[in-house]
């Protein structure tokens, strides 16, 4: 690996009673990455994050965050790591600014610096107009944005976001994702857990899929996509007026085509590379009329469904 791992776990395991929450997790996250931690509810995403923060002790295995062990040097880890919990809460009787300044005080940031930085961050997350309002008047989306400011105030090297988009409206989701993407531009490594795939897809450079405490797969979305769709690397969907067995046969004979499935007037063709040109030609030469043809793109949904069917 050319880049340096900023988070590394080996055989990280957490057992609650007789339930294995996280099972021998081996994770490598590089500096500057936006890593998406995917999985259904109860897959062990939050538990993993809590272990990386040193808030929960691992049953076995080791973890290193920025070179520190969260179990043995939790304070050093917490100094460089920011965390936005899933159900984030603020002191409702304090204003947004006071909440930020309290976090700053807990981090030992001097008062003037904290107040200046707090102002800048509230500006950045679009809350400067309500900075002097009590948090109890805030909507969920506003609290989430305040949470991002709260993570930023300590200038973290790594930021963990646990389900940052859960329960907020689409506009709010966009704002939150943009803010996180902006953080990534400032060289902050980001670990983001979610079960909402397409949202994560927009900003993650790499994803890991977790199910029942196990990391099933990790890699970039394109890599995973190719692995996920069995048979070939590319899938082409062709709609023709009347698919005859002869047509299907001649498509199958094109070099590089590994499989053809047909249902009504739709043909699903798996192939090693993009063979649209050749297929179009074959269809044109036949009696059938080409209605439409498209290259299927892999979404995380396909990847996700594929891996969850397996487990």
């Amino acid at each position, binding site marked *: 690996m050319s880049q340096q791992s900023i988070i590394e776990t080996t055989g990280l395991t957490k057992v*609650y009673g007789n339930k294995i*929450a996280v099972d021998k997790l081996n994770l490598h996250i590089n500096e500057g990455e936006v890593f998406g931690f995917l999985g259904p509810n109860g897959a062990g995403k*939050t*538990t993993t994050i*809590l272990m990386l*923060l040193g*808030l*929960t*002790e691992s049953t076995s295995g080791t973890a290193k965050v920025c070179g520190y062990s969260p179990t043995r040097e939790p*304070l*050093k880890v*917490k*100094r460089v*790591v*920011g*965390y*936005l*919990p899933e*159900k*984030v*809460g*603020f*002191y*409702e*009787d304090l204003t947004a600014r006071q909440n930020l300044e*309290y*976090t700053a*005080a*807990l*981090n*030992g940031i001097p008062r003037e610096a904290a107040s200046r930085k707090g102002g800048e961050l509230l500006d950045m997350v679009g809350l400067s107009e309500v900075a002097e309002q009590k948090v109890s008047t805030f909507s969920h989306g506003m609290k989430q944005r305040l*949470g991002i400011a*709260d993570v930023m105030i*300590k200038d973290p090297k790594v930021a963990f976001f646990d389900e940052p988009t859960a329960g907020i409206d689409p506009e709010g989701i966009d704002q939150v994702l943009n803010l996180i993407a902006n953080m990534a531009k400032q060289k902050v490594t980001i670990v983001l857990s979610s079960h909402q795939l397409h949202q994560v897809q927009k900003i993650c450079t790499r994803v890991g899929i977790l199910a029942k405490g196990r990391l099933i797969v990790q890699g970039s979305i394109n890599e995973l996509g190719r692995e996920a769709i069995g048979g070939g690397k590319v899938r082409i969907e062709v709609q023709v007026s009347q698919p005859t067995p002869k047509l299907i046969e001649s498509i199958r004979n094109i070099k590089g085509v590994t499989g053809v499935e047909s249902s009504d007037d739709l043909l699903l063709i798996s192939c090693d590379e993009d063979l649209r040109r050749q297929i179009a030609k074959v269809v044109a030469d036949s009696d059938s009329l080409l209605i439409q043809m498209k290259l299927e793109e892999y979404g995380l949904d396909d990847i996700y469904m594929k891996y969850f069917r397996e487990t």
Partner: protein
Amino acid sequence: MSGLMAVFWKELADHFNSRRFIILSLLVYLAGVATIYVAAQNIRSGVTEDTHFIFLRLFIVSGETLPFSFPFFLSLFIPIVGIALGFDAVNSERASGNLSRILSQPLYRDSVINGKFLAGLVTLSILVVSIVILVAGMGLRMIGVPPTAEEILRLFAFIFVSIIYGAFWMSLAVLFSVFFSRMATSVLASIALWIFLFLFMSMLAGVIAGAVVPIDENSSLELIVKNDEIYRTISRISPNTLYGETVQVLLMPELGNPSSTLMLVSIYTAGMIPTPLPLGQSLLIIWPQLTTLIALTALCFAGSYIKFMREEIRST
């Protein structure tokens, strides 16, 4: 250390801004002023030429309009204040989702609970000191007799004991706030325990003492003393009794030692030559009560501390 101070200042500000605390302190001030006013009106009755500690009498005399003395009101209100300061210390943080956010900041976990406890203690101290000074000043203006040096020392001891008594209730409430995840449960548990210890403990002690050593009007003195001892021992389980005895020794030095069969004392006080105990002797007498109160406080705090430190932050 900076973490502890940050938590401390925030909690202190929270206490003084909370409506709960403002309402309670108003109530305490009101009760204090009322009792001292009534006491000052009635202080002349029963004062003779050889009455010592006239200023202290201000704190123990009560009148017909308000048949309770100042220490009685304190023993009633201090537990409520202590419970109000502590019952939601930890579970409210957890319920509001603040706990995991705060614990992911670079501070030792015990800074959180220490800071909270310290802030509660300081708030409580400010309340107790201010109310005693307020009523003492008011009493001084009304009766015009300045306190002697010993009386001032006794008042300081009284303030100290009252703070410890409040600290016990606060640490009990904090303990419940660590163990019960719902604020309603922790506040009800604290209040239930307070009512039990305040109202029912002496009843229970009386019943048990009566069952072990039954007495009637014709019983020998020996039996009466024995019954009284059992009653006293059992009712001392309640911190309220401990506080009451301590206050009595501190503010009514002429009564002597409450452990030496107060009943007899009350039988004979009428004809007794008042020989008040010196301060050193008084302190010696209350020493066991005081250390018990401190130990109970420490025990509750240690319990909540251990539970809080060992508790894991769960994902759910």
